[in-house]
C-alpha cells in the first residue's frame, strides 16, 4: 500500500471486551413466542372473538336482565320453540331462542349463565394450574419427595371423588366458595401427577444433569430447563379444563354442593335440557354452543400457542 492509502485507514486495537459483545438482536423467549403466535392471521381473529365473547358475557346481562321466574305461573309458555315464542310474544332478541321448562327466556339466560360459569371456571382453573404445576414440577424432580407424594396421592386420589365431595358438603356446606373449594381440593392433584410424569421424562436428560453439575439451584433448573418444554402441555391442559369445570358444575349442583337452582349457570341449563334434548333442541344447543365456543377458541388458541412456544419454531 502507498503512503496516501495508508492515511485512509486507522489501526484499531484489539479490544477483548468489545470482541465479546454480541451484536445480533437479543433473543427474548417470550417475545419470540408472541411474534410467531401473531404471525398467524387466524390467531388474531380468534383472540378478537374471545375478547368479544368476554365483553359480551359481562355487558349483555346489564341490558338484558334475566328473570327465570317471570313466567312460572303461565304454564302455557313452557317449552315454546323459537317459532312459537315469536308468534306469541312478537319478534325480539328476548324470544329468539324460545323458552325453557319454566317459560324462561333462553337467549337472556345463556348470557347470565355464561358469566357465572366463566367466572367459576377461570378461578378454579387458575388455582388448580398454579398449584398443580408447581407441585408437579417439584414432585417430578425430587425422587424422595416422589415417594412421599405417591403415598399421599394413592390415598387421596383413590377415594372416589363423589365421596370426597359428600364429606365436604357436610363439613363446609354449600355456596360459591365451597364450590370452588370442592373443585380445587383434589383437582390440582391430578394436574400435579400428570406434570410429574412429564417432568420425570425430562429431568434425567443430559442437559438437565449438566445444569446441575454446573451448579444451578433446583428452582432454576425447573423453571429454565423443564417448564418451558411444558408450556405446550400446560396450555393444552388449560384448554381442556374449562369445559370440564362447566360439566362438573352440573354434577356438583345435583349432589347439593354449589350454586343451587337459582343462580343461572351453563352447566345447570345444559343438565335441565338434557333429558329431552332431541325433542326441545332449542333449550339444549344454545348453552352447549356457548360452552363449545369457549372450548373451540381456547383449544385452537391453546394449540397455536403451544406450537409457538417451542423455541425451535422461532426461526
Amino acid at each position: 500500500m502507498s503512503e496516501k492509502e495508508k492515511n485512509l485507514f486507522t489501526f484499531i486495537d484489539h479490544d477483548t471486551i468489545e470482541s465479546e459483545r454480541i451484536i445480533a438482536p437479543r433473543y427474548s423467549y417470550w417475545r419470540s413466542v408472541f411474534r410467531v403466535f401473531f404471525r398467524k392471521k387466524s390467531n388474531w381473529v380468534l383472540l378478537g372473538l374471545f375478547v368479544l365473547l368476554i365483553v359480551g358475557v359481562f355487558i349483555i346481562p346489564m341490558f338484558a336482565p334475566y328473570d327465570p321466574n317471570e313466567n312460572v305461573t303461565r304454564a302455557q309458555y313452557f317449552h315454546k320453540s323459537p317459532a312459537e315464542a315469536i308468534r306469541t310474544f312478537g319478534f325480539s332478541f328476548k324470544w329468539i331462542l324460545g323458552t325453557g321448562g319454566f317459560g324462561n327466556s333462553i337467549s337472556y339466560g345463556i348470557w347470565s349463565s355464561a358469566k357465572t360459569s366463566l367466572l367459576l371456571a377461570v378461578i378454579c382453573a387458575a388455582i388448580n394450574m398454579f398449584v398443580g404445576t408447581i407441585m408437579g414440577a417439584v414432585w417430578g424432580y425430587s425422587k424422595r419427595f416422589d415417594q412421599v407424594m405417591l403415598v399421599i396421592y394413592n390415598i387421596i386420589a383413590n377415594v372416589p371423588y363423589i365421596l370426597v365431595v359428600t364429606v365436604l358438603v357436610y363439613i363446609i356446606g354449600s355456596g360459591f366458595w365451597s364450590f370452588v373449594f370442592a373443585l380445587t381440593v383434589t383437582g390440582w392433584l391430578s394436574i400435579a401427577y400428570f406434570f410429574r410424569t412429564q417432568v420425570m421424562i425430562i429431568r434425567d436428560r443430559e442437559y438437565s444433569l449438566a445444569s446441575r453439575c454446573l451448579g444451578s439451584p433446583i428452582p432454576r433448573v425447573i423453571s429454565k430447563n423443564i417448564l418451558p418444554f411444558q408450556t405446550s402441555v400446560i396450555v393444552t391442559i388449560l384448554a381442556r379444563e374449562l369445559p370440564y369445570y362447566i360439566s362438573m358444575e352440573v354434577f356438583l349442583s345435583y349432589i347439593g354442593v354449589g350454586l343451587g337452582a337459582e343462580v343461572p349457570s351453563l352447566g345447570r341449563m345444559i343438565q335441565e335440557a338434557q333429558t329431552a334434548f332431541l325433542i326441545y333442541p332449542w333449550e339444549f344447543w344454545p348453552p352447549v354452543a356457548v360452552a363449545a365456543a369457549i372450548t373451540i377458541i381456547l383449544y385452537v388458541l391453546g394449540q397455536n400457542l403451544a406450537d409457538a412456544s417451542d423455541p425451535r419454531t422461532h426461526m
Partner: protein
Amino acid sequence: MKKIAIVLLVALMAFTVVSCSKKAAAETKTSTTATTATTTTSTSTSTATTAAAEKKYVRGDDEAIYAQVLGQYEQLAAAAKKASDDDARFVLYAQAEAALLDSAVMLPTTTQGGAYTISRIAYRTVPYVNWGNDDDRWYGMIISSDFISKAERADLIRMWNSAVKGDGTYDPEAYLKSKGHSIVKDYRYTFTTAPVTLDTLNTSSQSDTEILVNTVDNLVQYNNLGQMIPALAESWSVSADGLTYTFNIRKGAYWYTSEGRAYAEVTAEDFEAGFQHMLDAEAGLEWLVDGVVKGASEYLYQGGSWADVGYKATGRYTLQITLEKPASYFITMLTYSCFSPICKSFFLSRGGVFGKAEYAAAYAAGSIQFGLATDVASQVYNGAFLLQKLNSDSEIVVVKNQGYWNKNAVKINSITWVYNNGENPTQLYADVVNGVYAGMALSEANGTLALAKADGNFDKYSYVSDTTSTSYFCGLNLNRGTFALSSGAVKSQKTEAQKVDTQTAMLNKNFRKAIVHAFDKATYNAVQRGEDLKLTNLRNMYTHPEFVQLSTAQVDQDGHAFSAGTMYGEMVQYYVSKLDSSITVKDGVNGWFDADAAKSYLAKAKAELGDSVQWPIHIDNVYYSANSIQVAQAQAVKQVIEATLGSENVVVDLVEATTSADFYAGGYRASNGEAGNFDIFYGSGWGPDFGDPCTYLDTFNGAGAGYMTKVIGLF
C-alpha cells in the same frame, strides 16, 4: 421423610376423628335437651295485647288450639266411630270430613295418576281396589300386540261396568281378538329401584312390595271387578262378638323354589310364622296391626310373649285371628303384605329365628340367609309367579308358576322389569312404540307428550289414567315451634312481632280461608305437569271421592236422604257446600281456588283482627334451592297468593334450604308438630290401608293419635 409423613397423616386422622366425635356428642346433647323441653307445659297465647311495642313469641298449647280449630271435627269423628252400621258410619264420616275441610287447616292438592297414557293393556284386567297391594298383582293382565284405541277402550269400560253390576261377564280377551288384536303373553315394564330384600315381611317400601306381591299370595284377594275373593283362605267366619276370625286354609297349595320344584305345603303355621316374623322384624309394617290384633302391641313394645298374641294356627289348615276390639273393615286389611305367610321350614333352614330378642341378635350377627336379594334361591314362593332373576340395576324377571293353585287365572307367562331412570325418555318412547314395553304415561316435561302428539299416537290412543287413592295436601302451621334448624340453617327472617302476628292470624278462621282459597292448585301443579295436564290429577278432598259407597239408602240425623249407591264424595260435597260454597270436592278440577271468595274472607279477617296485627302478615314457605322444580313452584305459590290477596296484606317469604336433608328436616321429617319449621307446607301425602274413611281421617285425630297433626303444627 416417610415416617414424618405417616405421623402427620395419623395426626390428621386423629384430629378428624376427634372433631367428628365431638360433633356427634354435641348432637346427642341437643336431642336430649329437646326431649326434656317438650314435657314442660307452655303457657297459652292469649289474643290481642293491644299495640304492644315489645311482642314476644310464645308457642301455644296444642290441646287448646286443637280444640278451638278442630273441635267440631273431633266430635263428628267420634260419633262416626260409634256407629255400628257401615253405611251410617260413612254418612257420619262424610260430615266429619266436611268439617275438616271447612276448618281450612289443610288443603288437598294433588293425587297420583291422571296422566295421558297410551297402552296395550286391556282395561281393568288387574285387581281393582283402592288400598293394599293387590293392584300390583298382574297375573290376569290381557296384553295386546297393538295399542288399544279410544273406541275400543270405551267399549271395554262399558263391559266392565256391566260386569260389576252383575250383568254379564267381562271378557276383554275375546273382545280384543274379535277386533283383530293378537294377545301377547309376556309383560315388560320399567323400574327404578330394585327390591333390597325378598322377605316381604321385612320391608315396607313400595319398590320391594310391587315386585314381590306377584310371588306370594295372602289369605284373600281382590279381583279385577273390585270384589273380594278367597285366595289361600278358602272360607272364613266371624264370631258373634266380631272379635274372632277363623280361616280355613286351602289344601294342596305348595311353596315352590325358583326353579319350580315343590318345597313344602302351605299350612296355617306358615301364616302364624309370617305374622310373628313381621312383628320381630319391625320393618314398618307392624304399626297397622298395633292395637288391632290382640296382644300385638304388648309383644312389640312391652316384652309380651308370643303365646298371648291373637294370631294362631289352631289346626294344620285352620287359622284364628283375635282382635282387640271389633272392626268391621278388618277383612279389607288382609290384602296388606303384613299378613303374608312365609314358609316356616324354609325360614328355619336358612337361619331364621323367632322371638324379638333372638331375631335382633341373629340379624345383627348376619346369620339369617333368608330372602336375600342377590340370591333368588334364598326364598320360596307360593304365588302366581316365581322370581327367577334379580339384577339390581338391570333386570328383574318372574315366570309363571306351573304349580300355582289358581293356574288358569294366570294369563301371562312372565313379567320382566327393565331398569330405567328416566334419563332417556326419547328412547323409552321409541321402545314403547316398537312394542318393547306395553305402554307408558306421557309427560310434557320430558317431551314424550310432544312426541306422541307429533306422530299421531296421542290422538288415536291416549286416555287419562285413573287417579289413585293417595292424597297429597298442604298444611298451615297453627302452632309453630321452630324458626330455624338446630344448625342455624333455614332460618326464618321474621321479627318477633311478625311471628306473633302470623300466629294470631293463623288462628283466625277467615284468614286461613283467605289463604286456602287464594292457593291456585292448577298453576302450582302446572309447574311440574305442564299446561295440558295441570287439572287431571288434582284432588279436592282428603279421602278418595269414590273410596266407598252406600250399599243401602240412608237418612241422616237432619232427615236428608241419600240413595243406595251414593259415592262417599257426593255426601262430602253435600255437607261441605253448606259450610263453604267455594269448595268443590270432585277430582280433576281446581276446586278450591276462588279469588273473589278469598278477598272477601280476607276482608272479614281484617275486620276481626283490626289493630292487633301489623299487615302484611308474613308466611314462611321453605323450598329446596337445588331443585329447579321446587324453586319454580315456590315462586308460583308466592306470586299467585300475593297477586290474589295483595302483597300489602300477605307476603309469602321464601326460605331457602340448601341441602335436601335440611329441607326434609323441618318439614316432612319433623318428628312432631313443634319441630315444623314452616308456616305453609305442601309436601305431605297419605294413602289408605283398608276400606273405611277412618284410615284417612284418623290421621287428624287429636291428642297425638293422628299421624298428620304434626303437619299443622300440633302435637
